[in-house]
């Protein structure tokens, strides 16, 4: 590791190239004639990649664990759905979904960011449930029976595929920018020690609100694309607590606070989900639970951390791991007397 100023790593150019190649490959996918089912799987994966990256900005980079991201996914989905039914252009409707989710995040963040650590996490569970119940009973959203979207024109799977790829690419780009910015530096400082960060001039409350809004917007966009694609949404789907935990699980499995981790986590989750749900419904929850425990015990850096460790082992280097998982490095910090 060189004494590189700032947070640029020597591998960032390689990572850039890999990301660009992956994007090109995914752009070409619908043209080479793979099955519709495979395209659908990729599409879902992109949506999860988006929410996973978004959650990672707040939960991984800033260290604020939220169990309430289904709220933003749902707000995005419902805003897009209602707008599309009202005759708005689908893409404008999806964008509106992102905006409404970001606005909602401010309303949620203003009270809940006064709380810390586990108390914040618990508050977000409460918010999630409250919003789900309200949405199940609202007249305008169609209540518990859900909302059917009016479809203008012929259904084109490729179009939805590209929309999902677009939001995933956007989430990736935004995450990359944030994590290499001065703002990202403040977010990481808040994760490590909020009070010490405030002592040297970081405004924790403002920073948390800002990153929450950013993450909510990306999640809302994913929700909007999902609503447009599936043409039917209901509160127990998009607003479900299980959706929140899924959004949280993916970056944790993949590796918190990194760029590749949430992407890997979402991909693994989507593929496992696909296989398990068909063959052993319910069993996949057991698998995630076991995976989560194993990761927390043995590799807090997630799959990305495991990969780094393996790569280092293969290269035969045994240097101390500077990038080992965040959770491993979080030590209890004592306050002054």
């Amino acid at each position: 590791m060189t004494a590189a100023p700032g947070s640029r790593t020597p591998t960032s150019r390689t990572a850039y190239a890999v990301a660009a190649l992956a994007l090109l490959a995914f752009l070409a996918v619908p043209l080479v004639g793979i099955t519709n089912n495979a395209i659908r799987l990729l599409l879902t994966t992109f949506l999860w990649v988006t929410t996973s990256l978004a959650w990672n900005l707040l939960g991984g980079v800033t260290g604020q664990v939220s169990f309430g991201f289904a709220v933003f996914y749902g707000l995005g989905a419902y805003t897009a759905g209602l707008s599309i039914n009202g005759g708005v252009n689908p893409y404008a409707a999806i964008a509106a979904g992102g905006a409404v989710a970001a606005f909602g995040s401010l309303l949620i963040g203003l009270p809940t960011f006064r709380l810390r650590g586990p108390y914040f996490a618990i508050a977000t569970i409460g918010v999630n449930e409250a919003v789900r119940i309200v949405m199940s009973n609202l007249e305008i959203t169609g209540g518990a029976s859900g909302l059917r979207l009016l479809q203008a024109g012929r259904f084109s799977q490729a179009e939805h595929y590209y929309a999902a790829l677009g939001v995933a690419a956007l989430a990736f780009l935004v995450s990359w920018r944030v994590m290499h910015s001065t703002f990202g530096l403040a977010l990481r400082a808040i994760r490590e020690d909020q009070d010490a960060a405030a002592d040297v001039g970081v405004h924790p409350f403002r920073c948390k609100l800002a990153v929450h809004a950013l993450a909510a917007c990306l999640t809302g966009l994913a929700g909007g694309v999902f609503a447009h694609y599936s043409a039917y949404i209901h509160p127990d789907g998009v607003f479900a607590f299980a959706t929140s935990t899924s959004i949280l699980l993916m970056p944790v499995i993949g590796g918190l606070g990194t760029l590749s981790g949430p992407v890997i986590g979402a991909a693994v989750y989507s593929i496992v989900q696909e296989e398990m749900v068909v063959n052993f419904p319910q069993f996949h929850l057991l698998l995630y639970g076991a995976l989560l425990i194993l990761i927390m015990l043995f590799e807090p850096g997630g799959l990305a951390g495991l990969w780094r460790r393996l790569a280092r082992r293969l290269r035969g280097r045994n240097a101390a791991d500077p990038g080992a998982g965040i959770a491993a490095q979080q030590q209890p910090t004592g306050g002054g007397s």
Partner: protein
Amino acid sequence: MTDLLSVEGLTRHFGGIAAVVNLHFRVKEGEIFGIIGPNGAGKTTAFSMIAGSLVPTVGSIRFRDREIGGWPSQRVVHLGICRTHQIPRPFTGMTVYENVEVGMRYGGRRTPPRGSIADEIERILEFTGLSGWGARPAGSLPTGNRKRLELARALATDPVVLLCDEICGGLNPTETADILSLLRRLRDGGITILYIEHDMRAVMRTCDRIMVLNYGEKLAEGTPEEIQDDEGVIEAYLGRRSWMGRAEPIEERP
């Protein structure tokens, strides 16, 4: 010399416990002002109120004729008041360089010019004896260097007043001497320093003036010589043993 910081009637209760009671003192520009006292005397509590980590129950803290009592720390630091912690609180998952960078980018009174940040950080790391450690994760530093990092991160905010909370605690005599010489150099460079310390020799050698706290109240204030001769301090805080003039530091009561 003018008063830079003046504290009047500062009081802080924790439930039924009065940690700091009706504290008055003034700090002059360019001095090292020591605060000593037994454990639990309220030193850190007083510090935390000045630094904005704690809101005073009653009382006023004036910095250059501006009332700052109750301001949050991220606001106080922009006036030029920055603290270090008794138990170092580095951002353990970030590199030493990044730790200092946070202070520089967010704590400064003005935005540093582009391109000069890396040089400034290097300069601070060198000053605090951390050059060569920049790329190391802060969590891997030994105690002595964690203390240095506390100082480096605070210095990055370009402070007018530096609040050092037991920055020599747990250090060996060589490390202590190094840190003390840094503090003197900072003072000579125009930074006013408030300094909490348990190590008597360190305090007596370094401070221009000293305030003694006991049970949250001020017991005495003066130059090191005056404090050493103060009957009240000797009796109430240091005990009756004839300890002055001894080479080794006083043992703290547990």
